[in-house]
């Protein structure tokens, strides 16, 4: 009757810095923990915004270059459109009881998801560990990721 299937483990790479693409990794990591599966999140490139103190609450979604949002690109570039799309998405997310990014990060951390920043991306963006949220286990290299994700099913977002 156990929920776990042995040592199942999931490693999720978050590489995007837009609001819409911040959610899949968080939802999956949280679901993994709820089902008793080990989970780790590795934040790289623009995904680093999700763990950068000054940015995680300011992530946005843009209608430009996203045909799924049904808005012509030429309209999407009008000033204010990104803000409008972001505000609409935040409302919809709240309406279905999904937390905002900062609260979600806190929640998955409390649920036991291990959070790691990418060394190369941190260096590239000129950040220090002080710029990153305290829930982080650490900033690691790609090779460290290989060690830590051994035996894990890996998902790239």
């Amino acid at each position, binding site marked *: *009757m*156990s*929920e*776990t299937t042995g040592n199942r483990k999931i490693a999720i790479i978050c590489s995007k810095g837009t609001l819409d693409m911040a959610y899949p990794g968080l*939802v999956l990591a*949280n*679901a993994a*923990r*709820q*089902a*008793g*599966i080990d989970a780790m999140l590795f934040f790289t490139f623009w995904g680093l915004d999700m763990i950068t103190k000054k940015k995680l609450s300011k992530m946005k979604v843009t209608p430009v270059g996203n045909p799924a949002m049904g808005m012509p690109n030429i309209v999407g570039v009008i000033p204010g459109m990104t803000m409008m799309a972001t505000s609409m998405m935040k409302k919809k997310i709240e309406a279905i*009881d*999904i*937390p905002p990014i900062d609260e*979600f990060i806190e*929640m998955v951390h*409390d*649920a*036991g998801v291990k959070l790691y920043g990418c060394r190369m991306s941190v260096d590239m963006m000129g950040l220090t560990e002080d710029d990153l949220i305290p829930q982080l286990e650490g900033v690691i290299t790609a090779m460290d990721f290989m060690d830590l994700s051994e035996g894990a099913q890996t998902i790239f977002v």
Partner: protein
Amino acid sequence: MATLEMAGTSLELDDDGFLVNRDEWSREVAEELAKADDISLTDRHWEVIEFVRGWYAEKDESPTLRRITKVGGIPTKELYQLFPEGPGKKVARIAGTPKPEGCV
């Protein structure tokens, strides 16, 4: 079909270990269901179970873990300590409510 044997009766369980007939739930059944998960129920467990059952009675669905935290006031960390290795289904199973349908 799995069953839960207790005090001379045999309760039907589905593939995930949930009671097939939710009306059969009682505090004693909850104790037995918890035992199957190596959990011995404390007062704090009962607070969670009572919240979940209250929510179900009112809304006809199981609360998500986030609801148990936000509305029931049981912190995420504690939920994972009380119901280790997969609180998502465990809480509802022991409380005798349906599988939660929300994603968080």
